[in-house]
């Protein structure tokens, strides 16, 4: 019998808040022991997806398989193996020590608590003597975040889900959270799914990335998505006009399709000038970061309020002489657009 390499398998997941669909995932696999980054703007459905993965929220429709077994009732057994740290983790109105052992008490595990709390606190860079007897209100934002992480790490979970773990914390706390999460994977084979906005931090810890937009999942990582409103042209094509007088032509969408995904974006150079019929947009480079696994460079370019992301090989970056702040001309074919 072969072991299922996927710890999670999601099939045709749909979730609604009232009449509004907030999540629509046809298929998602998460490998055992992997570190997956979940990117997307606020309200895109990241937190909803994490709650579903934590078995804290039942999707309106769809099937979830955990280690190959379908989980429809969210049994206590499976809930005890997975833990989620929410964006603003709630600390119970008690001491740091009692907060950290809460999950163990639920599991009726009372063995060697002091030693284990000491170890959990050291993993997140907090001293046991200084912090264990502090009350919940005697902690800074970064310390509270790390205590919340320690309360999850002490459980040695099979899956650790982190929802924007470094939002509002200082650089030192962000680094300690990164190290602690990586150690959990290395020591116990914990599968990590981390949602976040800080791409540099996220790319420094995750092995693969998926992006989520309006509840739709893009398993290829960060994407360029253009949202409406769009204007109709004389021909079947649509046009989007950023504020500075430029315009983008896009092939016509299908029924109920509102957002455009653009993949084949290029930067114009003397060697490769754009031909007629290509959308040409003037902008500048806003950010560049290294993709850990592929060693490609993610280049974010801004054209007024529109953001375009390109994945370039390091030698391309070198030959084009790219650096943050440099003015560039972007181009893409109006037909190279996927609507959703």
């Amino acid at each position: 019998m072969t072991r299922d390499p996927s710890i999670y398998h999601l099939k045709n997941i749909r979730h609604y808040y009232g009449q509004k669909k907030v999540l629509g995932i046809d298929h998602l696999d998460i490998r055992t022991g992997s570190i997956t980054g979940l990117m997307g703007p606020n309200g895109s459905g990241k937190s909803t997806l994490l709650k579903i993965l934590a078995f804290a929220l039942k999707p309106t429709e769809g099937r979830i398989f955990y280690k190959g077994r379908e989980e429809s009732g969210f049994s206590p057994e499976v809930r005890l193996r997975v833990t989620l740290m929410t964006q603003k983790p709630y600390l119970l109105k008690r001491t740091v020590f009692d907060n950290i052992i809460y999950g163990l008490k639920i599991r009726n595990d009372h063995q060697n608590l002091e030693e284990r709390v000491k170890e959990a606190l050291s993993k997140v860079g907090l001293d046991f003597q200084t912090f264990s007897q502090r009350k919940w209100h005697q902690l800074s934002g970064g310390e509270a975040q790390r205590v919340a992480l320690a309360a999850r790490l002490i459980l040695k979970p099979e899956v650790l889900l982190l929802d924007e773990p470094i939002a509002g914390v200082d650089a030192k706390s962000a680094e300690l959270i990164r190290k602690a999460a990586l150690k959990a994977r290395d020591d116990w084979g914990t599968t990590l799914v981390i949602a976040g906005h800080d791409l540099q931090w996220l790319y420094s810890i995750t092995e693969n990335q998926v992006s989520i937009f309006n509840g739709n999942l893009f398993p290829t990582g960060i994407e360029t998505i253009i949202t409406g409103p769009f204007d109709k042209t004389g021909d079947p094509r649509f046009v989007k006009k950023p504020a500075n007088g430029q315009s983008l032509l896009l092939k016509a969408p299908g029924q109920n399709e509102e957002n455009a995904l653009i993949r084949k974006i290029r930067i114009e150079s003397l060697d490769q000038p754009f031909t007629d019929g290509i959308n040409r947009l003037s902008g500048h480079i806003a950010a560049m970061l290294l993709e850990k696994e592929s060693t490609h460079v993610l280049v974010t370019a801004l054209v007024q309020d529109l953001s375009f992301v390109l994945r370039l090989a390091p030698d391309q970056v070198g030959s084009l002489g790219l650096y943050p702040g440099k003015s560039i001309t972007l181009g893409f074919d109006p037909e190279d657009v996927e609507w959703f």
Partner: protein
Amino acid sequence: MDFIVEGFIKAVGLLINGDSSTWSAVIATLKVSVCSLIISTAAGLPCGFAVGYFDFKGKKQLRTVLDTLLALPTVFIGLVVYAFISRQGPLGEFGLLFTLPGIVIGLTILAFPVVTVITASTIEGIDPELKLTLVSLGAGKRHILFTCLWEVRYGILTAIVNAYGRVSTEVGIAMMIGGNIKYHTRTITTAIALETNKGMFADGIALGLVLITIAFIVNLSLSFLRKQ
């Protein structure tokens, strides 16, 4: 002005020397207020939790009724309870009129909405992250219930203290149902009303001091518990 000062001096003497009628009123007050508080808390806490935690049809209407009951005039409660427990009333056979248990019934009706409404509001104010945090740490229904209650313990204490304040200072119910019978159903508040009418300020002030002391001790205990 002198008679007030004299009243204070005499009041201290009455309390120190253990004046039997004064202490009888103090003990009657403590008995009825503590009994009614225990019953209203035992009934009001679960009701308040249910109203605050669950969503159900008619919840808004129920909240409106409970909020209205907060302002229920004590003489009206006295009148209704009197009608029920008087000899020709449906509970007349129990002989509760002009007894301390009769007063307890009235005070329980007074305190119940206070405990229920404040508990419900406290539960409604629970951070939504709390439940998600507990679920994500593996808590089941029982753990969620008890941890939620423990998290809002100060709000619940506030509900109980408020209810105690209401019942210990109440005069209408005690007067109508208890009848203000000396050494029997006379409470601090009914005694103060009577002594003032008689021009006996010292007795009134002595009882007033006891009432203030009780309120002070209750609030001191609350702030001590908060610090813990």
